[in-house]
């Protein structure tokens, strides 16, 4: 205790007014003018030392293994095949090309998953608010089941259902076929994957190439010039229809009358697309049995299908909760006030509830898209060739470049997630309540 008293006297002396004694060491701890700087200097030293320690360990370990840090392996021939390629690829191409193929596969399953998850999520979220007991209970069971059971279990279960319980393509053959195609003989669900019809163009701009049957997703892209024209037609239609809306809004403000415009919109939006499809000679090509397998149409691999379905159902359950929470977050008074103004229920939804609910719904919705994209790395469980399987898997195994490969893989995901959170921030800023 005596020692403590002595210590106290020593330290207390340091907080006495320092005016006449000049700068004292104790001020670094006690004086708020210096304290923040001294803490940061200490933190900087700790951070620098730990980075130096990690860095020297890496250098030492690499030297011990006889390796270096070098990204040149990206230019070397990959030497392995990828079973689903959205851009032309073969095994003589580089590791870098293989990584891009993997990135595109990741983006493909993420994009398809986001669309399906949104549709499922909105539908189930609204159904959970239904006053029909059977429906809202079933929606609740769906949400609880998918939120409480690991995604990985869903992925392997759906994959197992496809591979164990679905018929082989040969079961569709002959007069005593044990399996048949669904939806008017257009879709075949087999143990290898799902075959769906595709649209081909008989007057294709890229010649007859587009109707050559291919057993790959690349077949869709074969008529890319045709698809570009159709997308452009739709885009022009949308722009014109926005112009019509602006014109009609102006007219309503000036005269109080709102002209009826649905047939204009139909003429602008639908007619040109139909004309373009007719001129290009669009036909639906159905998959059909040839030998022991289906041919033509689009072949969606079992791995892609299982991963897509599991990701969509899983994320859909989370989105359903977000949608429900968003709609419930709008105060009861808002609905009542709108009803008191004499608005009809669909107008209440459109003008009062949804704009406020969307402010709550959209940011977590986008961050769920992000987690879906990151969860797509579970592709590993079903052997889908995403970026983790190409760049972060086979490439690493073949070249022994763990450090570089994992770094690039991490940077890809980091870039993706910073991009998406940037979008969320932009949205939040534009929709922020304008307060004092």
């Amino acid at each position: 205790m005596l020692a403590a008293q002595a210590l106290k006297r020593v330290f207390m002396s340091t907080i006495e007014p320092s005016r006449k004694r000049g700068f004292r060491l104790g001020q670094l701890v006690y004086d708020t003018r210096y304290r923040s700087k001294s803490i940061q200097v200490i933190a900087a030293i700790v951070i620098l030392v730990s980075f130096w320690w990690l860095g020297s360990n890496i250098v030492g370990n690499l030297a011990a293994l006889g390796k270096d840090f070098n990204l040149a392996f990206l230019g070397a021939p990959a030497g392995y095949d990828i079973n689903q390629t959205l851009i032309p690829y073969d095994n003589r191409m580089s590791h870098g090309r293989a990584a891009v193929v993997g990135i595109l596969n990741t983006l493909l399953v993420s994009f398809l998953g986001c669309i399906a998850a949104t549709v499922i999520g909105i539908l189930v979220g609204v159904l959970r608010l239904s006053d029909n007991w059977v429906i809202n209970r079933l929606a609740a069971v769906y949400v609880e089941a998918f939120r409480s059971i690991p995604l990985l279990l869903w992925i392997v279960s759906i994959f197992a259902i496809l591979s164990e319980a679905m018929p082989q393509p040969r079961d569709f053959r002959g007069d005593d076929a044990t399996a048949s195609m669904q939806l008017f003989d257009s879709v075949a669900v087999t143990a290898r994957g799902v075959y769906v019809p595709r649209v081909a163009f008989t007057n294709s701009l890229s010649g007859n190439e587009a109707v050559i049957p291919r057993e790959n997703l690349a077949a869709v892209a074969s008529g890319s010039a045709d698809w570009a024209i159709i997308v452009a037609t739709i885009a022009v239609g949308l722009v014109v229809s926005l112009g019509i809306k602006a014109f009609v809004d102006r007219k309503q403000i000036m005269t109080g009358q709102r002209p009826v415009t649905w047939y204009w919109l139909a003429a602008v939006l639908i007619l040109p697309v139909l004309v373009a499809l007719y001129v290009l000679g669009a036909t639906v090509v159905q998959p059909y049995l040839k030998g022991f397998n289906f041919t033509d149409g689009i072949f969606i691999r079992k791995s892609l299908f299982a991963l897509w379905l599991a990701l969509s159902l899983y994320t859909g359950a989370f989105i359903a909760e977000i949608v429900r929470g968003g709609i419930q977050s709008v105060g009861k008074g808002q609905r009542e006030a709108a009803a008191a103004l004499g608005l009809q229920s669909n107008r209440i939804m459109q003008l009062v509830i949804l704009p406020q609910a969307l402010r709550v719904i959209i940011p977590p919705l986008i961050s769920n898209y992000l987690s879906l994209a990151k969860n797509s790395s579970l592709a590993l469980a079903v052997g889908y060739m995403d970026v983790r399987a190409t760049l972060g898997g086979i490439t690493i195994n073949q070249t022994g470049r763990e450090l570089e490969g994992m770094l690039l893989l991490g940077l890809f995901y980091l870039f993706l997630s910073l991009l998406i959170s940037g979008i969320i921030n932009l949205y939040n800023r534009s929709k922020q309540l304008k307060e004092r």
Partner: protein
Amino acid sequence: MPGNQLSQAFVRTGMLDAKQPPAGETGLILWIRKNLLSSWLNIILTVLVAYAALRLALGLWPWFSNSVWQASSLADCRTILAEQGLGPTDGACFAVVTDRWHQLIFGFYPTDLYWRPILAMILFLGGIAPILFFSLPRSLLIFSCLAPFVCFWLLWGGTAWLPLLIVAGLAGGYALTRFVGAVISPTLTGLVTLALLIGFFWFGLMPLVGLMEAGLSLSIRPVASREFGGFMLAATIGLSAIVLSLPLGVLLALARQSDLPLIKWSAIIFIEVVRGVPLIVWLFTAQLLLNYFLPPGTSFDLTLRVIIMVTLFAAAYIAEVIRGGLVALPKGQHEGAVSLGLSYWQSRRLIILPQALKISIPGIVNEFIGLFKDTTLVVFIGLLDPIGVTRAIRATPEWNGVYWELFIFVGLLFYVVCYAMARYSLHLENLLRRDNY
């Protein structure tokens, strides 16, 4: 005379008895009308959905009702089904669960030591109870602090001196800051204590453990991490990460809100980098790269590496949830704390964190649910989590080809735990809700 009759006044002297409401307006019938048949659309939906659900249930029911619970292999199971005149897929074979439940739960943990994980689980639940339920006496929190160390010792075995000395070191550090810090500057004492503790744990701990063990042996049979598996592995990784990530998450959240730019930006970079990359990539990093970052020649347990990685991963997510709570707190709370003359740590401990944590509890529990489910990902780096055990069981000749029974069992285990956590979160939300719109 009519006029006379009209002029006769009729005044009721007593009230009529209240009538029963019409049969359609009470009880079951009302409920059905309101909840199932309120409009034509609803009637159609009810019928369609009920039909589909019923068909699904009826289609699956025979599979469950015919299930075989006692058999030694899948072939055996199918023979039993065939004896009843059923095809191989007409009945479930839950015998795999009764035969192998111990592997699904405990992995390859020594059979005679099952009491240790069970006891650890009970202790853990006992330790966490005072944190979960505010009505329990606060003095039980001491038990909560000690339980993790006992659990660690029970699970991995070995000498009890290691956890004992760690606890002693931490308790000594606490006493130092508490009693000496009250006399001298708390900041300085805190820094000195931190340095002393790091020095003790880094250099002094293992020799001292050896010394004490030589003097008085407190060892129980050690169990290696690779013998952990199944649900127990998921619980070990998940619960350790939960316990460790919460304090780390609080520190990260405070750092991110700090006025000191260096601290703030370090926290932001850490959190964003960790959150930006999927857990599976971090797990591969732990498996493939951790040896690059450590001094040459060191190698430590894969399970421990996974726990560290999952903890850091979860801490970044929890930091964001707590930051939400910190931001939601009115500015007046900070200003009030400052005007009372509280120091930074005092105001955090007494004013800010209790309120911010209260707001963010539901979010934290949600992160914990996610974390617990994510423990299944360790199967990819070769640990035997429940899904990994189902693969191992399928790889044996007896149970080759069994999928659904195992998946259903594993799914149910996770469902029960995660659903319990979700219900608890809901209970807290209701407890803490303030209705004002």
